[in-house]
């Protein structure tokens, strides 16, 4: 059987920069530049923008221009002196599951440096009020006809994506981010609570009604509140209390992440099992991401490279697909061993723990000396 749109021999992640402009008018052609961190770099991370933040500053529209100049890696598809637009096109795939849109917006390609390079440019104008939920723009280069690869290699059919770069993700609200952005924090007495276990440091409610899941911290644990509220000025030699706070920060963060990721991975595997039960031949599990609650999605997206067995996931869909394809034993091993180790290594928990043990030893030594 023929596999249409086969993965091309030449498929490139080409370098590009993003220019973001914003306007306070819906009609005038007056724009001001908006500085987006890492807009001048091409990495695995998305270019992410939050519409509500811009709207709060009085902006009504945003304009996204992606420019790629220099080698794209796709030049081998062109014969000498040919116009790249004869065989390929550059543009944005616009995708939103919230407003149900999936369309293509064409940009421009042209030969540069006497045909040595292809330069690409595409612009997309967006009314910020039109952003509901997540809105994705993926800059791609596609084949506009059947293309032959270099001699001896597989060619591609019309519409095949032969080049891609960073995805632009515009969120209505709720930015993804580190632990600090993902949760609402509440200090409560676990003794007086009917849903938290007495003696635990924290509890997590992933089904909370608000915009974020809630991380409950136990105010009954002696000194816990005092230590966690120690100001961290991040300069100079830290006091023992601040060292303790930093260590607790790391320890709690690791435990919270491990617990949350275990919960969502179990949900993912259970949804995958349901799908296999309905259709034994089911093999597309990326869309399980869409079945998760908003809080679970936020965790999967924000910590996708901790949740995944591999660490270069572009989005929540890809990590859901990976987890769903694992055997129950592999999931269990990942949750109990490799994932916590990876989280700890990233959070530098071992280093932090060593620091506080050293502090304790120094204290003992000084007391002995005294």
């Amino acid at each position, binding site marked *: *059987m*023929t*596999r*249409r*749109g*086969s*993965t*091309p021999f030449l498929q490139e992640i080409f370098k590009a920069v993003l220019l973001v402009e914003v306007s306070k008018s819906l009609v005038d052609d007056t724009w001001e530049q908006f500085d987006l961190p890492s807009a001048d770099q091409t990495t695995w991370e998305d270019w992410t923008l939050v519409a509500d933040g811009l709207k709060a500053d009085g902006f009504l529209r945003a304009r996204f221009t992606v420019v790629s100049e220099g080698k794209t890696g796709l030049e081998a598809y062109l014969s000498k002196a040919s116009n790249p637009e004869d065989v390929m*096109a550059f*543009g944005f*795939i*616009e*995708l*939103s*599951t*919230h*407003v*149900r*849109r*999936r*369309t*293509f917006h064409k940009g421009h390609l042209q030969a540069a440096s006497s045909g040595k390079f292809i330069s690409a440019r595409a612009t997309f104008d967006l009314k910020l*009020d*039109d952003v*509901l*939920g*997540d809105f994705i723009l993926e800059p*791609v280069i*596609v084949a506009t006809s059947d293309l032959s690869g270099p001699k001896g290699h597989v060619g591609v*059919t*019309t*519409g*095949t*994506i032969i080049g891609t770069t960073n995805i632009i993700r515009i969120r209505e609200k709720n930015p993804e981010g580190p632990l600090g952005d993902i949760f609402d924090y509440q200090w409560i007495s676990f003794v007086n609570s009917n849903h938290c276990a007495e003696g635990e440091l924290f509890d997590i409610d992933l*089904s909370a*009604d608000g915009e974020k899941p809630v991380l409950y911290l136990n105010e009954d644990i002696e000194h816990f509140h005092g230590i966690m509220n120690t100001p961290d000025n991040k300069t100079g030699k830290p006091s023992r209390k601040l060292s303790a706070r930093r260590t607790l920060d790391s320890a709690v963060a690791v435990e919270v992440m491990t617990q949350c990721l275990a919960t969502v991975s179990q949900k993912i595997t259970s949804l995958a099992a349901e799908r296999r039960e309905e*259709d034994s*031949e089911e*093999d*597309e599990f990326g*869309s399980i991401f*869409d*079945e*998760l*609650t*908003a809080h679970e*999605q936020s965790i999967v997206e924000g910590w996708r490279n901790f949740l995944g067995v591999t660490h270069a996931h572009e989005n929540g869909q890809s990590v859901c697909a990976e987890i769903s394809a694992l055997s129950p034993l592999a999931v269990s091993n990942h949750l109990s061993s490799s994932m916590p180790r990876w989280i700890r290594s990233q959070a530098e928990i071992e280093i932090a723990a060593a620091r506080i043990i050293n502090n304790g030893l120094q204290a003992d030594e000084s007391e002995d000396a005294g």
Partner: protein
Amino acid sequence: MSTSVEVNRPLRDKGEVLQVLKGDKTLSAIALHGIDIKKLEAAALKATTELANSVALGTVDKALAIVLHEELAPIRKSAPGVLNDVVFWQWLALNPFREYSLARWCSDLPLLSEIVEPPSSLGRLTLTSGSVKSHARHSVRRLYIYAECCYLYDGSYQHLGKILDADQDIPGAVFERRLGLSPLLAMALFDVASQFTPTKKTDSAPSISARTKRREFFKQVNLLGSTVSVEFLSEVEIVKYLTDIAADIP
């Protein structure tokens, strides 16, 4: 004395749907943005009666989908964000469309007082934000999605029958995946996928059902979508890809 709790947030699961049906919870009234709720209630009541009289499901759903899509036009114009609001759809399903939703999807439900474990069919009355699968399975939202797809395709509802009279496998494969986000692609998929016929058993080969062939077809289409930008293709190019794939299904 009523002990019900008012809910103005998305219902978490089918258990909460059951609580609403039992009257333990009520849903907050929503802003109607100029829609004629009486007309919607009348259409839902007519549909419920027709279901009781064993009128074909496709016929009942088609008429209701058109009224729903037409009556929500003011919202599309003035407050499109409402159509993205899970609370709006759950309210529609559990208030004006309650009897229709129950008759259409939960006709085998025992007496509410006897239900302890909520059946999975109640999941048809709840929604997950941004989930194409959840939206395509919701008792009311699905009708709107089908009508909207046809309307965006050619400005009419003439192709609604293609969706609502098709084998249930096809709307599931199209609208419970991102394939249904493009009206052009969705319509082409219905045209090609509905043409599969079963192959009879022979001495050398077993029989193959049309459903089995369609599943293989959609598997190949999803593979295609992983490397080809179907958004870029013209209708002619999409149809050619799909018919070529269908021709390869044994």
